């Protein structure tokens, strides 16, 4: 039988379209950064609030500097979190640091919060010999086993059913942890999204599906992505717990995620969170949003900048000051620049990284392929400056390619 519940029977024909089931948005901080009337403060303790805020600031600085570096041709590609720091970091802060994060690509703030070092960011961005990916993936595809942050994969949405599976493993291991997966409202259109939410509710796994609804998938506005009122109402189709939250309100995001984590870990109820936010920057360094949206729209959202809002709240509590802000900004800028210089200078990964990690052990055929490549590079070292360098052969400097 299809359901244990017996639905009511009606004899009048009436087609519903769900419009009546409009989900409200949960918010605690108003657009100016003041608590809404009746909301009690503080909702975060001093240490955590500052840890969150500093991660937000760092992320903003990192994004600004690296986009500038990309514009200068120092970096092949970059992608900003700008505008979505509260959503990403507020959610991360509500988790245990041992919970698994399976992100899409715009969630560097989560890594910053968990303590991924500036050098670790830079080494990945420059694909050098210390890149966590060993120079195999484009910039921004970070990963850290230590920090429980799954290495980013470019195909969107693939991480969503994986998060359900990972969380099922956590449930089997009974280790008290959960998994959060971040994804965009665009990614939520993929078949993998449907698969994931359905399997998560059927198998009751401790997973949080965190949708960053930032209004765009590259140039495609959300109104061309779906016809409904956002992504949140899809939860009803799976009987999944759901909450929509103001994604630029760090307190609300934190609170919602904290409760979601409780449901996930204590009751094995998966939860969908839809954070309403806005991608203030271009999609990536390859994109120019002036082709598809107005300055006016951007300006309106800049007014709701999540960092400005949190700062106001912190300053009102006397937990932060303009002086501290300047100091930290200075420190972060300096850190990023120094670290970038170091990362740029580091050698490329060794040549053998071309064939390792395809399997746990290198196969005979791969060994042959590497040997023949090595011999070839030794014949033409000047055509393969990186390969030659990796083989310890002295060749003229590389000509700028990324």
């Amino acid at each position, binding site marked *: 039988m299809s359901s244990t519940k017996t639905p009511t029977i009606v004899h009048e024909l009436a087609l519903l379209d769900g419009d009546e089931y409009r989900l409200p948005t949960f918010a605690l901080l108003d657009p100016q950064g003041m608590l809404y009337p009746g909301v009690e403060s503080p909702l975060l303790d001093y240490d955590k609030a500052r840890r969150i805020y500093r991660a937000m600031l760092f992320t903003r600085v990192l994004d600004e500097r690296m986009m500038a570096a990309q514009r200068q041709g120092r970096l092949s590609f970059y992608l900003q979190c700008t505008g979505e720091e509260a959503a990403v970091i507020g959610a991360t802060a509500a988790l245990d640091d041992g919970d698994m994060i399976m992100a899409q690509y715009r969630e560097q703030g989560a890594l910053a919060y968990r303590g991924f070092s500036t050098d670790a960011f830079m080494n990945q961005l420059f694909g050098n010999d210390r890149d966590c990916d060993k120079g195999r993936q484009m910039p921004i595809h970070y990963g850290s086993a230590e920090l429980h942050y*799954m290495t980013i994969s470019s195909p969107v949405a693939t991480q969503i059913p994986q998060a359900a599976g990972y969380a099922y493993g956590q449930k*089997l291991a009974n280790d008290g942890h959960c998994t959060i997966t971040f994804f965009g409202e665009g990614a939520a259109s993929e078949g993998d999204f449907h*698969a994931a939410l359905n399997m998560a509710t059927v198998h009751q796994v401790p997973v949080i599906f965190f949708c960053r609804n930032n209004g765009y998938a590259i140039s495609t506005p959300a109104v061309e992505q779906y016809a409904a009122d956002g992504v949140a109402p899809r939860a009803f189709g799976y009987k999944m717990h759901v909450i929509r939250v103001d994604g630029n309100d760090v307190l609300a995001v934190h609170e919602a995620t904290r409760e979601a984590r409780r449901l996930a870990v204590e009751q094995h109820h998966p939860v969908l969170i839809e954070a309403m936010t806005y991608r203030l920057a271009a999609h990536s360094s390859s994109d120019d949003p002036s082709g598809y949206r107005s300055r006016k729209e951007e300006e309106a959202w800049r007014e709701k900048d999540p960092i400005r809002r949190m700062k106001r709240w912190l300053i009102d509590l006397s937990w932060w000051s303009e002086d501290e802000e300047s100091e930290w900004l200075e420190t972060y800028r300096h850190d990023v620049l120094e670290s970038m210089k170091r990362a740029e200078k580091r050698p490329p990964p060794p040549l053998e990284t071309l064939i390792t*990690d395809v399997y746990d052990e290198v196969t005979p055929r791969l060994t042959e392929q590497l040997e023949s490549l090595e011999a070839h590079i030794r014949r033409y070292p000047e055509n393969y400056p990186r390969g030659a360098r990796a083989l310890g052969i002295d060749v003229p400097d590389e000509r700028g390619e990324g």
Partner: protein
Amino acid sequence: MATMNMLQAINNALDTAMATDDRVVCFGEDVGSFGGVFRATSHLQERYGKARCFNTPLVEQGIVGFANGLAAQGAIPVAEIQFADYIFPAFDQIVSETAKFRYRSGNLFNVGGLTIRAPYGGGISGGLYHSQSPEAYFTHTPGLKVVVPRDPHQAKGLLLAAIRDANPVLFFEPKRLYRASTGEVSEADYQLPLGSADVLKTGDDITLVGWGAQMTMIEAAVEFAEEQGISCEIIDLRTLMPWDVATVVESVVKTGRLVVTHEAPLTGGFAGEIAATIQERCFLYLESPIARVTGLDTPFPLTLEKEYMPDQWKLFEAIKASIEF
């Protein structure tokens, strides 16, 4: 030792894997209490509980996506795809994710624990969508291992090796032989090596290479050939990715002739890879062109299935043509 058919051997391998490592988890469409539409997972839910053997919703991309995550977490998922023909909705999860997980993460993460089982192949009146042999879609995908057993003994030993291998393995089961192939299978916990071909029979005049259900076709064809005084060497590749080039090269250096066979269509099939590699490595030893005996370059038919199949008579003709070249 017990007499088992291939399904029983597979069921026994799964049972052994689950008994010896409680991280092993089996799931897929109908694999739970029902035990799978072919009954390969019979009794596993009963023995190991619903948490370790369960039905999934009908969504292959979800099954493999879930399995990838579960493997990344450290569990050892054995996911069933009900028919190899229905593996394609999971293609992205397999090709983009499973295969590249370790490499792209610089070995920080891997899904090495994952095994995907799927019944493949024709000869059961299954038509287009219950007959396909999709191995070549995966042998072009570095990071995957692809394994195909030919009989119950091989099935158990290779499946246990696949489950315990530190790399993701696609395990294609020749469903035509599920019940048709029976033999003595040890009840002990044993493994057969991945990545190594099996020389079933040595011979001097010609080498025959195949895998899975085609081995029965090869054996029948070789009987005809040997009656005619042609001495045949038979190689079961067993693992298609990464395949055992050395064993095939060694054989062809000796015999000078090679016939490769598979059920999948000719163009782009794995026999092409073998032929391309062997003509390169054995160029000066080859006495006739390498022949491929395969399905036609069409979807899989129904009424004229027998005509479509690369059977023992087609193989025998190819052997003769090669010898007489």
